[in-house]
């Protein structure tokens, strides 16, 4: 398919700009643009068709089953888009006075209340733009908390299990902390014995996803809590897998001091292309003074943005947060109401059903009841037939499914991480299971069929090495087109006319 720049025709345009009959002030010559940017030049229907065609070259949650582990690709109710498009939300300027934004502030405050209930913690900051920013903000709160107690210099280490998302260690570095890795035991829990020797007066805290990236609930969480709090350290809960436990168990009750919530995962948001997200954090009372500004506060029947917080770490993002994300997630939560528990129960049920159908055909490192996702391994397929997790993933595309997450977590070789979510009906799960089982048979009977997959996607396997060795990260106008300048001359001629 052509790039939009290859469809461009000099002088064509898709949008008319209002031109008032007023003089245009001069831009000082040394600050004025000399060469126009080579943006596409197309009429409106051409732009529309280009992007419509691009949309057909994607596989999204609206196309079919999307069990991308750890990403919680659930259905995005259409009503949420209607609500967020209401002019009173969509056209609200972020710097209006609080009395002109009472509706928006009330929504934010109520969202905070719901998140307090879901997490079992005391105070909320809605500001972080995504889970990873929530992590970083949480670690900044750790530092502020310990600095306030005169212990920041002493406590430099953050403990992270080897199953953790890559964002955890990356956030540790960005917050200026050092990483202490801890192992996983044979049941898929944190290895408590390994942990004991690693937590001391130099430990600032733990970052843990529970259920873990293996889809397993850590059976020793109470012991882990005693170890960290006993050493005066704090506990951070990576909420990436919160979809497993809403209304069932609460991070605050498990002992966690800071939690981030991935609104775009658990509470629905169209994020298949990579975003947007929302990563509010919930904290225990002892960390509340350090939250970023502003915090939404309530005085009787009115709401306001509170900036007067002398111990605040500052700001991690503009304004109060990604408001449109809040509107969608709030609508999603209110549609469930107290039935939110059922959402998590069905997510866990769906995952266990699929696991039961697949665990004899693939390898399973930890044979336990799973939570909302599970991790299979293709190591036997690889050893016996040379068919890797990547090959399985590519072959699933031919069957009309989005592949699961592969090669993660790192401790499982040839990992296939499957997260069905609560959105899917039994027939869909069965069809996926049948495809996964068929691929095992194909691997034995005709491995090349699997290894050369996909066979009917817009592109075959892509040469990723070439993309790294000689990076092409923007369109090369010079290489592709008639000499630049022809279009400009045409533009000049038009202006003259």
């Amino acid at each position, binding site marked *: 398919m052509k790039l939009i720049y290859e469809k461009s025709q000099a002088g064509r345009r898709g949008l008319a700009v209002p031109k008032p009959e007023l003089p245009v002030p001069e831009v000082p010559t040394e600050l004025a643009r000399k060469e126009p940017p080579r*943006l596409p030049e197309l009429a409106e229907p051409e732009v529309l068709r280009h992007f419509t065609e691009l949309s057909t070259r994607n596989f999204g949650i609206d196309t079919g089953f999307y069990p991308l582990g750890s990403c919680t690709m659930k259905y995005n109710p259409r009503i949420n888009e209607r609500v967020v498009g209401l002019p009173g939300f969509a056209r609200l300027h972020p*710097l209006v006075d609080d009395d002109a934004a009472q509706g928006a502030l009330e929504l934010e405050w109520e969202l905070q209340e719901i998140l307090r209930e879901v997490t079992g913690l005391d105070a909320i900051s809605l500001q972080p733009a995504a889970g990873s920013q929530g992590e970083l903000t949480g670690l900044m709160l750790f530092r502020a908390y310990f600095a306030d107690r005169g212990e920041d210099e002493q406590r430099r280490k953050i403990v992270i299990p080897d199953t953790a998302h890559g964002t955890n260690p990356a956030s540790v570095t960005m917050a200026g902390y050092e990483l202490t890795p801890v192992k996983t035991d044979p049941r898929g829990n944190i290895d408590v014995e390994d942990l004991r020797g690693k937590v001391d007066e130099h430990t600032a805290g733990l970052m843990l996803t529970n259920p873990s990236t293996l889809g397993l609930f850590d059976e020793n969480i109470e012991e882990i809590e005693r170890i960290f709090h006993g050493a005066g350290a704090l506990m951070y809960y990576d909420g990436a897998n919160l979809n497993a436990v809403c209304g069932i168990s609460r991070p605050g009750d498990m002992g966690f001091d800071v939690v981030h919530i991935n609104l775009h995962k658990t509470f629905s948001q169209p994020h298949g292309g990579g975003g947007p997200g929302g990563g509010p954090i919930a904290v225990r009372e002892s960390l509340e003074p350090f939250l970023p500004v502003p915090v939404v506060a309530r005085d009787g029947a009115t709401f306001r943005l509170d900036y007067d917080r002398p111990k605040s770490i500052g700001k*991690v993002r503009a304004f109060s947060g990604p408001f449109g994300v809040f509107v969608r997630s709030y609508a999603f939560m209110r549609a469930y109401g107290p039935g939110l528990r059922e959402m998590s129960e069905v997510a866990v049920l769906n995952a266990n059903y699929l696991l039961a159908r697949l665990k004899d055909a693939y390898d399973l490192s930890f044979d336990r009841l799973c939570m909302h996702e599970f991790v299979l391994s293709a190591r036997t397929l690889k050893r016996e037939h040379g068919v890797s997790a990547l090959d399985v993933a590519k072959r699933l595309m031919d069957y009309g499914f989005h592949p699961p997450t592969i090669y993660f977590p790192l401790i499982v070789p040839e990992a296939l991480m499957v997260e069905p979510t609560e959105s899917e009906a039994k027939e869909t799960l069965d069809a996926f299971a049948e495809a996964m089982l068929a691929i095992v048979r194909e691997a034995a009977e005709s491995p090349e069929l699997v290894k050369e997959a996909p066979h009917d996607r817009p592109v075959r396997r*892509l040469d990723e090495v070439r993309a790294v060795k000689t990076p092409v990260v923007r369109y090369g106008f010079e290489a592709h087109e008639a000499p630049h300048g022809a279009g400009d001359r045409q533009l000049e001629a038009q202006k003259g006319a």
Partner: protein
Amino acid sequence: MSQGVLQAIFEYQTAICELTGMEVSNASGYDGTTVAADACFVAKHATGRSKIVVTEATNPQVRQVVKTYAPGFGLEVVEVPHDGGTTDPDRVREAAADAAAVIFQQPNFFGCLEPAPDLAAAANDAEAMPIAHVDLVSLGVLEAPGVYGCAMAIGEGQSAGNAMCYGGPHYGFLAARSEYIRRMPGRIVGETVDAAGERGYVLTLQTREQHIRREKATSNITTNQTLLALAGLVHLSLLGPQGLRELGETCMALAGYAKEQLRAAGLEPVFPEKATFKEFAVRTGRSARDAISAARAKGISPGYPLGRDYAGLDDALLVAVTEQRTINEIDRLVEALAA
């Protein structure tokens, strides 16, 4: 499975490079504030220095976010005060000694046009990376940062293609010269070929990223703002180069009209000598907050009180006028602000 969105991001990266005069753009950051913190991280590792200079005339929220991130990065932040609404290149040159980067905004927070090429040169003289925080919709009429020597260009993309929506979700753009490509934060889409030799797109240079590199990653960013960046690309594609230029001219014409009419009504510009783009500061002759309240009673939300962030500007109001406004509305604004 995602060739459509990958191609769209490749096209977005191309548009950002064209607008900023840079050679590489990432697939988007959270917003116009966090990309500034990202840029500081790049600068720290590219230069091995640990001081960041940021001009006081840069958006206060951008400065706040940089300062919040700085301790974790091991960075010290130094601010250069403005001098009558713009920044003096000599003061930047002085502050930039031993600095990793100099961040300035063009147009700046007061709406004034900075002597951007001179600021970039001052930073370059000290071997600090000049980083311009720019307004996408100004780049049809204002020079591209890449042309006047900047190492990176960053900014907030909301005004190109996305609703205000009480502050988000929006997207931040981050572009750089190609020498920084392997230090860039976030996703980057690259062009390659498939097994049959057909053109296709992949996420590339992923060894920079957290899922591979973990604690040695260039950033922890994972979820970004693709859907919003895509909206930005659609908007820019509809405008084209000529539309973008006209958009800038219309903003300038309407803002110029508003400035003149307010002056005629007794509201003097705070920085009368300075050229502006679509925003400008005026003296209201009373507390700006009172002026805002009075105007709101007449159905107009007239602007932002600069005293909130700058000492000595309690009577100053920052007014923004874009192509969305009409002459009639501007006349109502003037009426509402005239004492």
